[in-house]
């Protein structure tokens, strides 16, 4: 469904991303991992065409994204940013309704409102629907942002660190929502993740970046090895493979 070919991005003559290539099928979840500043967010922004990639192409269902009209593209790709600036009062309902913007000309239809209402119920935000977005906790805000992207009804979702700044329960809750949604609607998901255990547990494939290039990619159990993590993160880890998903336990930083 999504084919990333030889993607590259330069900023001020420095290669931020180079030779990125991977494929994503419908309903598949791919996690992008790597240390801070490796280009995870940049990669997501290039795919969403928030940034224009310098080289290579992003092909969606056989069509090059560069040649697509932005009004068509937003019906294919949903993007959830890391931060949520909110200077002005905005209700939860209005925040999620924004996801319907590609389908609304002026007045939202009953169908638009129904989709938003259903998502609010699904996210268990019913009591907060008319509350101000700013009054929500970090976990609730993240759910609203996810709901906004779900409301967009795209086949592909790009999530920039959906679990950063969340407590343990919300991390799991958010990951489960993403995984359920991907299963139910057959949505392809690419997300950048810091927590290697969450990545290993919730993704079908992992793409590990090092210095703007793909260091290795594949099934979680193939990517999450002691050697790989040592070379990419400079961290010594122990990996427990007794369970279904590899469990990574960090030991010490290597200098």
């Amino acid at each position, binding site marked *: 469904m999504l084919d990333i070919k030889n993607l590259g991005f330069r900023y001020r003559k420095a290669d931020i991303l180079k030779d990125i290539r991977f494929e994503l099928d419908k309903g598949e979840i791919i996690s992008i991992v790597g240390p801070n500043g490796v280009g995870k967010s940049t990669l997501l922004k290039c795919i969403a065409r928030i940034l224009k990639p310098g080289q290579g192409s992003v092909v969606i269902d056989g069509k090059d994204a560069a040649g697509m009209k932005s009004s068509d593209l937003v019906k294919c790709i949903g993007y959830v940013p890391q931060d*949520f600036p909110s200077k002005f009062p905005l209700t939860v309902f209005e925040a999620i309704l924004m996801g319907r913007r590609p389908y609304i000309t002026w007045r939202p239809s009953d169908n638009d409102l129904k989709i938003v209402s259903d998502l609010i119920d699904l996210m268990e935000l019913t009591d907060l629907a008319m509350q101000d977005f*700013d009054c929500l906790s970090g976990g609730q805000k993240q759910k609203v942002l996810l709901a906004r992207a779900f409301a967009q009804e795209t086949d592909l979702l790009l999530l920039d660190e959906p679990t950063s700044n969340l407590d343990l329960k919300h991390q799991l809750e958010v990951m489960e929502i993403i995984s359920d949604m991907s299963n139910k609607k057959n949505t392809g998901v690419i997300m950048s993740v810091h927590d290697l255990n969450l990545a290993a547990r919730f993704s079908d494939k992992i793409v590990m970046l090092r210095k703007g290039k793909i260091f290795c990619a594949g099934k979680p159990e193939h990517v999450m090895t002691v050697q790989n993590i040592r070379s990419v993160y400079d961290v010594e880890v122990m990996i427990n493979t007794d369970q279904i998903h590899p469990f990574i336990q960090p030991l010490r930083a290597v200098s």
Partner: protein
Amino acid sequence: MNTESSDIHKEYRNLTGKKTAFIILLFILLLFSAIIGISKGALSIGMFDSIKAIFKDSGTAHAIVWKLRLPRVIMAILVGGGLGFAGTVFQAVLKNPLASPYTLGIASGAGFGAVVAILFGSGIASEYLVPGFAFFFALTSSFFILGISGIKGPSSETMILAGIATMFLFSSLTSFFQYMGTMEQVHEVVFWFFGSLSRAGWKEIGLAGAMILLPFPFIMKMSWDFNLLSAGDEAAKALGVNVKRIKITSIILASLITSGVICFTGIIGFIGLVAPHICRMLIGSDHRFLLPASALTGAVVVLAADTLGRTLWAPQVIPIGIMTSFIGVPFFFYLLMKKTKEYW
């Protein structure tokens, strides 16, 4: 679950209904204030008589209404509406609650342009020269601000500091030209700077009306884009907003409105900052409703301020800028104290 869901749905429709009602209410209030504005003055005309005087050719009353009061009332509506509308646009585009034509130095830019035109343009079609120069310098300062927000990010501190710097730059330039000008020119400029609606004649209203009202429909069309901008530039882009184009067009249009206001009335109060806030506190930030509500609120406040300014110590007229603040500030503080949860 389904019943709950349809409840939220209804609640939203209910709220948008209330917002529409609020706008209609403001409109009625504006009509009412306009009639009062027309009836009050040195010669008090009854409210019904003043409506009659507009339509019937009945001697003195008709002359007073058409020559003096109606132009003034319409100018007040244009000025207040324009400032409220433009203020909302600047706040939405810069995502900054402190943005307004004044705090960003855009009004000072327009003022400087007008002064240059007044000083050097005498004789040469000055009725078009003043608005032209005002618009040019308003644009200069707004692009300066837009550029800075692009480089440094639209944080409140950066924007307002840049705005204050622009404001000082243009007021020093204005002072410099005043210093160089002749006595009569200085007098003219000082008088102009007081901010007054009394210069409004039908010809000025025509030009000001065009500069202020023509951008309205184009800006209204961008309401949804303004809504999405509040989610952040990147999120807005991902939802299909052409962020750069929206920012540049709306800034140009809002600058046009600001210069339309400034060049015919001088520097008037802070309504561009306050009207959007008053409305946001009352009906939220959906720009489909916020934009018309802010324009109407601005118009009502300026019109009420002018009517009071003319009548309180008649025949003395309190300048409109001073009166707007007298009326607007207490109301703003009242809302500020009442509202506890958001940043207000």
